[in-house]
Structures are given as C-alpha cells and as structure tokens.
C-alpha cells in the first residue's frame, strides 16, 4: 500500500484497502471556518443531537472575513463563537490565529498518519505532514460533528518524483504551477498526489505545504508527503501527543500508482497561471508585457515566513512602483510576529507595501483588497477564476512570492532574476 492507503486502512480498521474501495473512516480532526462553519452549525442543529462526537477533535478558525467586514459577517462570527462555547471546542478568534491551514499546523492539530477533514477545499495542505486530509462541505462537516466518521472512496494515486535543483528565485510554487499546467485542472480528479524524490526530502515544511495546498487545483482528493525529520522538527513543541512511528507511514516498495511523473526542476523557470484557470500556466519569460495594478503576497498557499523572507529580499531598499498597490498578509499571528522580529515588516512598509492583519483577504474576493473592472492583480494565492478577487472583469495571475515582489517593483509581471542583472 502507499501512504494514503495505509492511513485510510488504519482509519477504517482494515488490514488493507485498494483504490475504489469505499471505507467508513474515523476522523481524527475536523476544521470549519467563518464561511463554512455557520451552515455546518445549522445543519448539525437540524440533526437533533446536543453534543458533537468529540470536542477534542474539532476546531473553529475565523479567518475568511476577519475582522468582520460587515454586520452580516459579524453575526456569523458571533454564531461560531457561541457554538464553540456550547460545544467546548477550540476557536481561534480574531487576533489569536490567522489563516486556518497555517494555524492548524502551527498549533499541532495536524499530525502524521491522521485523517483530517476540513470545510475548506485547501484542507489538502495538511498532506505535507503525512496526514490524509481533504476538503468537504458544510453539511458533510455537520455529519462528522454528529458521527465522527466519513465515507471515502480510496483514491488511485499518482506519484510525482521530483529531482534536480531549483534555480535562484524558483520555488515550490513554480513547481506546483508547472505540474498543474501539465496535468490540467481536472487531470487528477478524485486522485491522490504523492510527492517524493530528493527535492521534496530537502524541502521545508512551508514548501511542502504549498505543493499539497494546490493539489485541489488539479482536482485531487489529497496531496501527501511522507513524514520525516523535517516534519518532526516542525512539530517539536507544537504537540504533546505521541507521533505514530513514521516507518508505518512509508509507502511500500511495491505500492501501486496509476501514474508516475518524473520532473526535474533544474530547467524550471518562474511560472505564472494566467486568467482565468489555474492550469493556464506559462513561464514568466514567455508572458510578454502584462501591467499590474495590484500585487498580493499572502494566503494559505504562500503567506508563510519563508515566503515573506523571499519577498523582503527582493523589496529591500526599493519602492513599489507608482500606480501599483502591494499587499502583504502574513498567514498567521505567529508568522506576523516572526516577520516583525526579523525586520521584514519594516522592509515592506519602507517599500510602500501595505501589511494587513492575518486573514484570507483578497484571495477569495470577500473582504479587503478587491479589484475593479479592468484591473489586474499578480498574486501568490491559489485561484484566478472569473470574479475571484472582485469584479468579474478583473484579471488575476498566480505566481510565486519572488515573482509577485519583483512585479510590484516594475509594475509588470516580472521574472525576479531579471532584477538581478
């Protein structure tokens, strides 16, 4: 079995499972946020149970519209606070957490070998820790609140074997954009994507999270990386729980894969996903002249300290071009504090970038940093769909933190290596 099959077999108390099997899996952790939580709470109440299955295994994070951008949002937040109190479950309120997927990992809610479902499509991010994690809807979350179980079809797996060496300013984001371009927006529907190879072994947790985060953009059920020393180091001091032995989470040498894709990153340049689908990917060098109005660095894909360091390296001592607005949103309170300590926030403000409090922000177009008709944003986030960041007549290009920072300086989508010359 591969790692995903091993986790699903263990969660459904079976000795083995195969792709296509439908299993009833025990859920180790459930996450809901301010936009999916309220419908889940309403649905849970309709089921007629007083208490959720296990108050230690559910978490609420307020992140999509924080601080409340409208009275309606404030009402939803209030509803979630009340539910968390009634059920005695942990809630990361405004100022105490940040973007759900970052908070869940920083606070030790994501452990190797566990089954995690979240009412957010980017829940697949947690696969970076060797967990089976997938996004669900609100009603399904209510079902998990009630039963602690979920039915899942065991997915076919695709193995991505990544080798080579990243060029300067080429990042895991460029790799995942390249892969999405190659595989397509529906090329991995229902599948598991397992990342392995020397590049992955050397990669930080932040990079692994960026890769797994965007597997849903090719339709995948989950993305996953085998846990290792890097995983263990990240988790130190973040959880008191005993970790499952990592050997039990290694894919067997004879594990089956529907497909194995070999990718050598040495030849890879900076990539960009053009409007308005995530698989419309081109190397930045072939893009031509694309002027931008907004540059956004943040989101559950690329709002981590490693991303901010990279952006700061490029923005240091320079100014965001006139006519461009640059937004920087650290993914969590912890990220923000670390950036402050390292002097990154000062670099951003000196460069005339606006640093906002930890939130999903412009990524989903429900809050700050929206786009007007005819405007263009280059963004480190994960989706460039029509209307995603505001006007249905605005354009969103997805790129790495390095590319977005470089573009903020020049006012056009720019390969960061161009600025080095």
């Amino acid at each position, binding site marked *: 079995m591969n790692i995903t099959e091993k986790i699903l077999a263990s969660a459904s108390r079976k000795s083995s499972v195969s792709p296509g099997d439908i299993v009833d899996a025990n859920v180790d952790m459930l996450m809901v946020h301010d936009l999916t939580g309220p419908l889940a709470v309403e649905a849970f109440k309709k089921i007629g149970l007083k208490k959720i299955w296990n108050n230690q295994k559910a978490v609420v994070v307020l992140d999509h519209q924080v601080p409340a951008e409208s009275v309606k949002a404030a009402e939803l937040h209030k509803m979630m606070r009340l539910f968390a109190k009634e059920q005695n479950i942990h809630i990361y309120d405004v100022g105490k957490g940040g973007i759900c997927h970052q908070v869940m990992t920083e606070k030790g809610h994501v452990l190797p070998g566990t089954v995690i479902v979240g009412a957010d499509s980017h829940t697949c991010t947690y696969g970076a820790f060797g967990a089976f994690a997938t996004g669900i*809807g609100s009603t399904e979350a209510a079902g998990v609140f*009630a039963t602690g179980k979920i039915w899942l079809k065991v997915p076919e797996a695709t193995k991505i074997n990544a080798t080579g060496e990243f060029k300067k300013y080429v990042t895991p984001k460029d790799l995942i954009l390249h892969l999405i371009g190659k595989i397509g927006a529906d090329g991995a529907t229902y599948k598991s994507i397992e990342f392995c190879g020397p590049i992955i072994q050397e990669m930080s947790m932040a990079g692994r999270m960026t890769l797994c985060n965007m597997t849903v953009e090719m339709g995948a059920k989950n993305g996953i990386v085998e846990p290792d020393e890097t995983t263990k180091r990240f988790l130190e001091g973040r959880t008191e729980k005993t970790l499952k032995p990592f050997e039990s989470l290694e894919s067997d040498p004879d594990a089956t894969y529907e497909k194995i894709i070999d990718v050598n990153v040495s030849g890879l340049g900076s990539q960009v996903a053009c409007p308005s689908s995530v698989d419309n990917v081109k190397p930045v060098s072939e893009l031509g002249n694309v002027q931008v109005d907004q540059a956004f660095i943040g989101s559950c894909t690329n709002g981590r300290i490693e991303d901010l360091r990279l952006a700061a390296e490029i923005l240091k001592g320079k100014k965001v071009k006139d006519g461009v607005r640059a937004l920087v949103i650290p993914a969590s309170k912890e990220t923000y504090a670390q950036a402050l300590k390292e002097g990154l926030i000062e670099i951003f403000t000196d460069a005339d970038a606006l640093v906002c409090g930890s939130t999903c922000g412009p990524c989903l177009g429900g809050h700050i940093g929206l786009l007007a008709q005819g405007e263009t944003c280059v963004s480190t986030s994960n989706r460039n769909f029509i209307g995603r960041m505001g006007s249905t007549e605005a354009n969103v290009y997805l790129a790495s933190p390095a590319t977005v920072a470089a573009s903020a300086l020049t006012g056009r989508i720019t390969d960061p290596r161009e600025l080095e010359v």
Partner: protein
Amino acid sequence: MKATGTAIKFGDNVDTDVILPGKYLVLIDPKDLAKHAMEGLDPRFPDKAAKGVIVVGGKNFGCGSSREQAPLALKYAGVQCVLAESFARIFFRNAINIGLPVIECKGISAYTDNGDKLEVDFETGKVENISKKQSFHVAKLPPFIVEILVDGGLIENLRKRLNKK
C-alpha cells in the same frame, strides 16, 4: 425518483466562484443565495432557472472552493438536476448532501442544446433528451447515495439513521 426541466448549458471547468461569488458567502438564507446563482457567467440565470431547469455542464463542473453555498444557490434558483461530463469531487458530495441530484453523463453536452426538454430517472440511470428523442444510460449511483437523495439530503438521512439506533 425523476427530474425534468429544460436544459441550460455551460462549458468545462465551471468553478464555484462563478456559481456563487465569494462576496455572497455571508448570506445564509438559501433564497438569497439563489438570487446570485451563476452570476459570474450569466447574471440572468436566476430568472431563467425559476421555472425549473436542468443544468448541463462540461468537464470538472463545480471545481474550486468547497462552498456548499454554490449547490444551494443552484437548488434554490430552480435547478432540478445537474448533468455534466464530470464533476469536481467536493461539489459532487455537497450537492448530494443538500439534496441536489448530480449525475455524470458522458456525451451529454454534445447532444444537448439550450432549451431542450430533459428527463432523468435516478433509479434506472436513464437520461432522456425528449426534444431530440435521444437517451443516455449513465452509471447508477450507489444505493446509499440514492438513499441520501431520496431522503432530501444528508441531514434527513442522518436523522433517520440515528433515530433507528
């Protein structure tokens, strides 16, 4: 269990941001969500759908965000069923869980025009284009999923199951 309605066609990769833009996620009443269904592609969709329609999509229908407000908006706008070449998995599960029938139907796009009268029989797996006198057979949904649809969604289904215990 059957659904009937006139067809409204869309292309490939219809994402949940165009089905229901993020700015409306603060709305909680499904009837309010319905007023904005498909706003990203056709702001007149709610008027067209009110009389009961079947949405015909291409590949990867419902990709993107896990927002359940997307299938809810469609259901309350008057959509009786969504037929598509393929679905994104979270949308597929969400639709079933809120009682909006969704069926994977290969080839449906090419043989359907806007305004065709369609009928879907969930028990037999037969999809009929009445206007064109053409029928398709689709893989039947597993019985436990049909049961959720017949019950009107996962919540009713769970109430029933938990009460039995």
